[in-house]
Structure formats: C-alpha cells, structure tokens
C-alpha cells in the first residue's frame, strides 16, 4: 500500500462493516420486494378487474409473508457478515482516472482500475457528487413532470401557484439529497458485494474495491442519461407546456441497462474471463432492471386505469 491512509486497518474494518450492513439491508429490502411482487399476481393485482372480487385480496397471508422474510433477512445478514470478512478488498494506490474515459475510452478505464491506479478518497468524493447530483436531478425531474402532467389541475383545484409549488419542492431537496446519498452508498456496497461473489463463482478474481470503483465511475452513465432527460424535459416544458413520459420514466432506466452492459465488459476484461461468463455475473441485475422497466410501464400506463375500474367494482356501478 503506497498510501497507508487509503486503506489502513481501520478503513478496512469500516468498509467491511458498512458494506455488510448496507448489503444486508439492501438484500432484505430486495427479498421483501420480491415477496410482495410474487404475491401480487395471485391477488389479481396485474389484472384490470382485480377488485371485482374484492375479498380475493385477502389471499395474502401476512403471517407467512413475515416469517420467510424474517428468516431470509436474518440468515442473509449472518452469511453476508461472514462473507464480508472473507472478501479480498484489494490495495488501491493513488492515481488519477479521467472521467471522460467512462464514455470515450472504457478500456483505459478498466485497465487503470484493474491496476488499482485510483484513490479511494477520490472515489468516495465522486460517489458523493454523483449521489447529490442524482438527488437534485430526480427532484427537479419529478417537479417538472408533475407540473407538466397535473400542473393545470393542481393549480385549478388546489389553488396553488407555480411559485408556491416550486418553493414546497425546494424544501424537499435536502431530504432528497440525504436519502439519495445514503441510498447510493448502500446500493454500490451491495452491488459490489454480489458482483464480487458472482465473479468468483464464474472464475474471475477481482478485488472488492476494484468492483466498487468500477461501479462508481460507471454510475456516471445513468447520471448522464438522467441529466440529459431532465434538460430535455425542462426545455420541452418551457416550449410546449408538456413533457414526454418515455423520456422521463424510461430514458434514465436505459442508462442503468447501459451501466450493467459496460460493467459486463469491464468484468470480462478485468477478470480475464469470457463475455459469456461476465454476462452471467450481471444477468440478475439485467433481469431486475428489465423488471423495473416493466413496473414503470405498469405504474405509468395501467395502474390509474386499473384504479378507476377498481372504484367501479367497489361501488357496484
């Protein structure tokens, strides 16, 4: 280790403990989410007439629901904690990585990260900047989207003005920033953990912090997609008083797909494994992103009309 400050024993423990806690929480949330989603088709949630038989909603057995979640969460917490202390963190050295390499020369980026030519402090700083920017952009995007789609109704029926709306939104920015920063840190810790162990399974030995750094730099891709989407939305709102749903909801998600595809390439090159094997490493995340895209579609295009039908069934008209 050239710079003892970068990854001394204390830092190592902090990374392992924070990583274990973040991964356990993220995994636990994922299990909860998966359990909820798995139960929804049986209730007819995705069926437009799901409220026709309102009592069918009682099919969810909350006790059975809670027990497997608790068991899986506790078990995974122990396994993740043990696994975290068996992780090879790697030895980052000081160095400078060009941010433009993420877009222009990804091979040079992979090579630099592989040779551990990066500073952990810079990586963490970059992650903070990315998460803050992400929080700000998301808040702005939500504000523009709500104004464009429901603004006229909000103003007419709730007697709000553009000015009072934007003020109430600005008040939310600190909270959005805090949750964005914490969420980003946890997400990168958890993703690095799983990619680390999945890579091991397929035969690639890439240190944990190398994957962590790779993910932080590659996070610039979805951030740029989001930034571009917000800019296009802002211009579109000013010009046409409306925004594109595809651009708002799906464009940033494509950024995440590109992230994992680039990550697949990176793992293949850094771990000296074939693309087929690295594809297996990122496959679960590609599936999750694809499912999130479907859910976004469902919530944007189906849920409200389903709710209208549900109201009809419940009122008996």
């Amino acid at each position, binding site marked *: 280790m050239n710079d003892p400050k970068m990854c001394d024993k204390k830092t190592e423990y902090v990374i392992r403990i924070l990583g274990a806690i973040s991964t356990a929480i993220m995994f636990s949330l994922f299990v909860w989410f998966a359990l909820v989603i798995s139960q929804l088709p049986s209730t007819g949630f995705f069926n437009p007439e799901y409220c026709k038989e309102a009592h069918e909603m009682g099919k969810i057995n909350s006790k059975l629901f809670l027990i497997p979640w608790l068991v899986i969460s506790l078990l995974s917490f122990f396994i993740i904690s043990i696994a975290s202390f068996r992780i090879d963190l790697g030895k980052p050295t000081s160095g400078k990585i060009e*941010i*433009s390499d*993420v*877009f*222009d020369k990804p091979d040079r980026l992979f090579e630099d990260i592989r040779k551990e030519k990066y500073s952990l402090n810079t990586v963490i700083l970059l992650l903070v900047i990315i998460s803050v920017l992400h929080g700000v952009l998301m808040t702005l995007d939500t504000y523009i989207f709500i104004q464009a*789609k*429901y603004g*006229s*109704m909000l103003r*007419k*029926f709730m007697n709000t003005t553009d000015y009072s709306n934007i003020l109430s939104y600005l008040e939310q920015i600190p909270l959005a920033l805090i949750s964005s920063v914490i969420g980003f840190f946890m997400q990168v810790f958890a993703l690095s953990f799983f990619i680390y162990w999945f890579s091991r399974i397929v035969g690639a030995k890439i240190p944990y912090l190398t994957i962590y750094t790779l993910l932080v730099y590659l996070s610039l891709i979805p951030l*740029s*997609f989001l*930034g*571009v*989407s917000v*800019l*296009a*939305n802002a*211009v*579109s709102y000013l010009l*046409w008083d*409306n*925004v*594109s*749903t*595809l*651009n708002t909801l799906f*464009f940033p998600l494509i950024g995440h797909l590109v992230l994992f595809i680039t990550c697949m390439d990176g793992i293949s090159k850094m771990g000296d494994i074939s693309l087929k094997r690295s594809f297996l490493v990122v496959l679960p995340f590609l599936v999750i992103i694809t499912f999130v895209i479907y859910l976004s579609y469902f919530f*944007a*295009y189906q849920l*409200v*009309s389903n*709710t*209208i*039908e549900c*109201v*009809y069934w419940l*009122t*008996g*008209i």
Partner: protein
Amino acid sequence: MIKKIFTLLVLSFIVSGVEIYYINSSPLLGYGNLEDLKANEEKLKYLNISEYHFDEIYEELYEARPHTNDVLAKDLYKLHALSLGFLEIISDGIILWQLGIFGNVYNLSTSETHKWVKTYAHYRPIAVASGLDLFPDIDADIPLDTMECMLHKEDGYGKRLATLVLIRWFILVDSAIGNSAVLFENNLSLSKRLNVSHRKFLEGYAELYRVILARLSFIESVLDEKPPWEGILYLAYYPYFKKIWIVTKSIPKQEIENCKIIIDGIEYKKIDMYPFIFVDVELGDGNHKLDLITESKTYTLNFNVDTPTILLKHGTLYQNGTYVALLMNVDHLNRSIVVRDITVGIEGIQKVQEINEIVTPYNATLVRTNLDKTFKKGERYTVNVTVRYMVGGKEKEYLKKMCICAGY
C-alpha cells in the same frame, strides 16, 4: 464525452418532440359544451335551490381537459372526473331526497292496505322502457338489485355511471308512485310547500335533470373516450293521466324542439320541457312503437303496455330458503281473485306452494314459500315466479322474473 452526451441529448429531444407531437395531435378529452354544464339558477330557484353546486369546478375541469394520447394526464383526469361524478350523484341525490320525491308523496300508510294498493294501482306507470337496451321493471322489488342484473359488460363505465344511476332514480321514484305525482299532480303538496305553481316547479325539476344529464354525459365521454350515449333514456306511460313521459339524453335542445313523436304510426302533439317530453295519449294493452324523429336521426323505442289483475312486489329471499312476497289484487274491474298456488323457480329448483286464498279488490296478501335450500347472504339470485289464480271464473297465470339479493 461531450459528443456522446450531446448525442444523448439530441436523442432525448427527439423522443420528447415525437411524443409531444403525438399527444398534441390527438383531440381533447370529453365532449360537450361548457355552457351546458352550468345550471340556470333562475329556474332552479323554483325548487328552492338558491345556488347550484360545482359550477366553477366544472368550468375548471372543462378548461383543464388533457389530450386523449396523454396517458398519464388523461388517467389522472379521469380519476378526478370520476370522483366529481360520484359527488354530483350524491349532491343531486340529496336535492331530490330533500324534495321528497323518493318518499311517500301521497302520505299513505301501508297499514291502510286497501287505500295504499288502490292508489298504487292508479298512479303507477303500466309501461316503462329505455333506449339503452335495458328492460326496466317498474314493479322491481329492490330497484338497485334489479339494475345489477341489467348491467352490460360491454358498456363503458362512463355510460353505466351516466345512465344506470338515473334510471335507478326514475324506477325508484316510479315504484313509490312519485313521478306521476311530481309530473302531473297540480295540487301536490310538493309545489305547495315550495309556494310555486306546478308549472314553475316542473320547469325547475326539468332544469335540474338537464344539468345532471349534461354533467354526467360529459363525465361519461371523459371516462369512455367517445361521445356520450344519446337517445331516449326513459319512457313511462301513466294510464291514470293518459300521458307518456320521455326523458331524452344528449339530444340537442334544438332537435328536441323540432322533433316529431309518432306512436304506432300516428303523430301526437308533444309538450317540450327539455330534456323532458310529454305526450298526451291513451294506449291499450299490447306492444307499441314510439318514434322520436329529429332532423338528423330517428330514435325508436318499443314498449309493452300491460294492465295486470295482480301484482307481486317486495320479494324477499331469506338465507334459510324462505321466499316471501306481497301479492296485490289490482283488478281494475273490482273483482275478487282466488290465488291457487305460487311456483318459485331458483337455480334449477322449482317449488309449488298451494295458497287457495281469496283476495278482495285492492287488497294484498303475503305469499310464503320454503325452497328447502340455503342462500348466501348478499348473493344475487334470479327468481322466476308463476302465480296461478282465478278471476271472473277463468284461470290465469301471472309470470314475473325478479333479481333478489339474499339477506337475513
């Protein structure tokens, strides 16, 4: 890097531009004129309604109409319109309730069976029909349940909201003989209480329904994304007053004013009180055809006039399998009848119950049958009832199909 991000930006602009062009090229949601959604306060004053509700809200709702291709904005707008539709129905329902037309307009006591049955038999319409391809039954035991059985799955939710609720009201009022009183009785306590002439009262009543129909039709067109259903919403024939009452829906006022009413090929004079039309006519038993001919379209409605000797009302189905109903002798020739038996058919089970009871003119008797079957509370069952009875030395049969919600 800049080049790639710029390419992304261009792509994002193209996506936005194409989608917004797609949205803006579609028509605005909802059909109707803003002016129609507002009430004529002057006319409503005769109903003692000084200020009618939601005028401004409808103005704002109308102005905030999104484009039909704007999925998210459209769905939220629909949800908003739907909630307003429910509010409209509740508020108007309260106004009608306060007018007293849902209640006992003739102040009759059911303990005075003879008077009650006689009044009911005189004032009830003996024919009701709707251009909605529904078969409303004026003697429906529980109108709400009967309507449930009439639902057409292919009908849009907006159409159901804007038509079934109103037909329910008409049937509910007609089953309590309120409509004949409201529409034709000059000395009714209702207009007396309001201290207005019957004519003024009726103008206010028609205006109230005009606004309700216009608003619900607008909401219907928003929810179903097509023009609202138009035609003869309700027709009722009142033999005591020798009048037909027609409620039209979404046919423009000008067309109604210039329309012709032809019944069985003969043109009749009409009295317009938009959206109502009154026709003075005397009809005999049997099938009849009414044509409402406007400049652009002809609305045809077939209806059946039937003057029965007996009537079956207030059918109740208990969980333990007991069916109870009120059998009334409404023979207009004032003859007594001998009820032989009653056959109740439900879910493939048929049960015959001997009665052998004499019912004097304008009197009623409770008939009770045990079906030896248990029923699920809250479940709706279609019940076919046949009553065999003797009148004037001849044996006759009375058939009735009911839709009853099991209870108790």
